[in-house]
Every structure is written in structure tokens, then in C-alpha cells.
């Protein structure tokens, strides 16, 4: 069970030019998932750049760019929403993720402004039941 009295962080995983090449044998993601189960709220892998879109609206018109180039050179490979008692703990959790070796981990503190913790907890539980009870999300 997630302790929602803690701070929340977005871990954003990206490629990195100096990273260890990816190897499935060295990918210990399932060990990480087990080790940080008390901290991890939600997370997914992301597709390659080709399937992504950049969306802007300028002078009333919507512009959609296929396969956008990120603001920096690397691309996003996944993300996790975690809770931690401090930024140092969030950094420590991120450092053990395989993407710290195969890429880079951005640790982004969240402001807690939009989503109340109680509501987040509720939606995460609803999300876990999405296949069984899709209406729970509404």
C-alpha cells in the first residue's frame, strides 16, 4: 500500500548516448518492481518516437507533429510515479532502476496541486481494476 502522506515524484526515463547498451539479461526491472513496490504508484513503458505526437495550438489552429524531436536530443523510454519521504530517497529509488544503466533517470518533484492524494489513490486502484471493471474509472 502506498503511503500517500509522502511526497510524489515523476521518474522520467530517457535514452543517453553514454549508456550501457540494452541487454535483456541485464534488465532487472522485475527485481526493481518488487523492491520498490511500496513506493511505486503507477508506471508504463513508452513507445518509440515514431508513434508520438507533438501538439500545439497557435492563433486558434491545432498543429500536430508526427515523430517529434524532443526538446533535447534523447527520447523518453518510460516513466514511474513514485512516493518517497525525500528527494534523496527518490533519487536512490531511481538509481536502482535498470534505466539508470541503460539510459538516464530524471527525478522530477511534483507540486501536488491538481490531484489530491486521496483521489489519486482512488484512481490508481480503479486503474488496477480497469480490465475487470472498466466503469470504475468514470
Amino acid at each position, binding site marked *: 500500500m502506498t503511503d500517500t502522506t509522502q511526497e*510524489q515524484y*515523476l521518474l*522520467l526515463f530517457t535514452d*543517453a548516448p*553514454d*549508456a*550501457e547498451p540494452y541487454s535483456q539479461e541485464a534488465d532487472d526491472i522485475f527485481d526493481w518492481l518488487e523492491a520498490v513496490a511500496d513506493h511505486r504508484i*503507477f508506471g*508504463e*513503458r*513508452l*513507445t518509440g518516437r515514431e*508513434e*508520438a*505526437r*507533438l*501538439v*500545439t*495550438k*497557435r*492563433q486558434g489552429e*491545432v498543429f*500536430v507533429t508526427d515523430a517529434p524531436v524532443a*526538446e*533535447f*536530443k534523447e527520447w*523518453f523510454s518510460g*516513466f514511474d*510515479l513514485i512516493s518517497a519521504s525525500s*528527494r534523496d530517497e*527518490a*533519487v536512490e529509488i*531511481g*538509481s536502482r532502476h535498470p534505466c*539508470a*544503466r541503460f*539510459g*538516464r*533517470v*530524471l*527525478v*522530477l*518533484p*511534483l*507540486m*501536488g*496541486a*491538481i*490531484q489530491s492524494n486521496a*483521489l*489519486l489513490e482512488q*484512481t*490508481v486502484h480503479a*486503474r488496477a481494476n*480497469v*480490465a475487470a471493471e*472498466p*466503469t470504475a*474509472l*468514470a
Partner: protein
Amino acid sequence: MSDEAQKRPFLFLWTSDPGRESEQPDDPKIEDWLSEGEAAGAWQFGDPVAGPGEARSVVRRGAEVIVTDGPFPEFKEWFYGFDVVLARDIDEAVEYASKHPLARAGRAYVLPTVPMEDSN
């Protein structure tokens, strides 16, 4: 299987943009965007992100963990926040993102997810 169950998560990453426009009075309010998305079963959760000076970059190279304090020179723009949204396909996700006030006052990266069980 219901229609709803075929939706998959998308990550919206909002960032600043040099071509951003100031918000206009008739732009949708974030609260309206959220409640519309919640009612449609699309919006799941999201939050603003702290400024670049609060962020850390973490890599492990060999046995060494290297932590770098933000701001990061390679990021000329910075994240405003993120949302996790359920949609049937990228077009539906893009359409919802385009209604957010930050589509005008910034930019949205709409990123499809890969289910963990499909990527092993």
C-alpha cells in the same frame, strides 16, 4: 469486451515553448478540461512539475551512481507537468490534449505507452 476496456494509457508531457502564446479569455479552463476528461473516463491523474533547479538527473555507469542537479543545459524548455489519460488511439489522445490551455501556452508531447506484459 467493453469499449472502455480497449483504451490504453497515454502520457502527456507539457513543456514551455518559445512560440507559446498567452492564454486567451475564451480558452478552456484547466478545471473544465479535467472534469470533461474525468466524465469521459479519459483523465486519470496528473500534476505540475517543480522547476528545473529542483530536479535531479541520475545515471549508473559501472558501479558508480552519478547524480546531477538541475537545471540542465540541454533542456532549454522545461516541464510544466504531466497527465495520464486513457484513450482508444493516438488521435483521440491528441484531440483531448489539443483542448488543454497549455496547448496554446506551451506544448504537449503525447506519448503512447507499451503494456509491460507485451514488452517482455
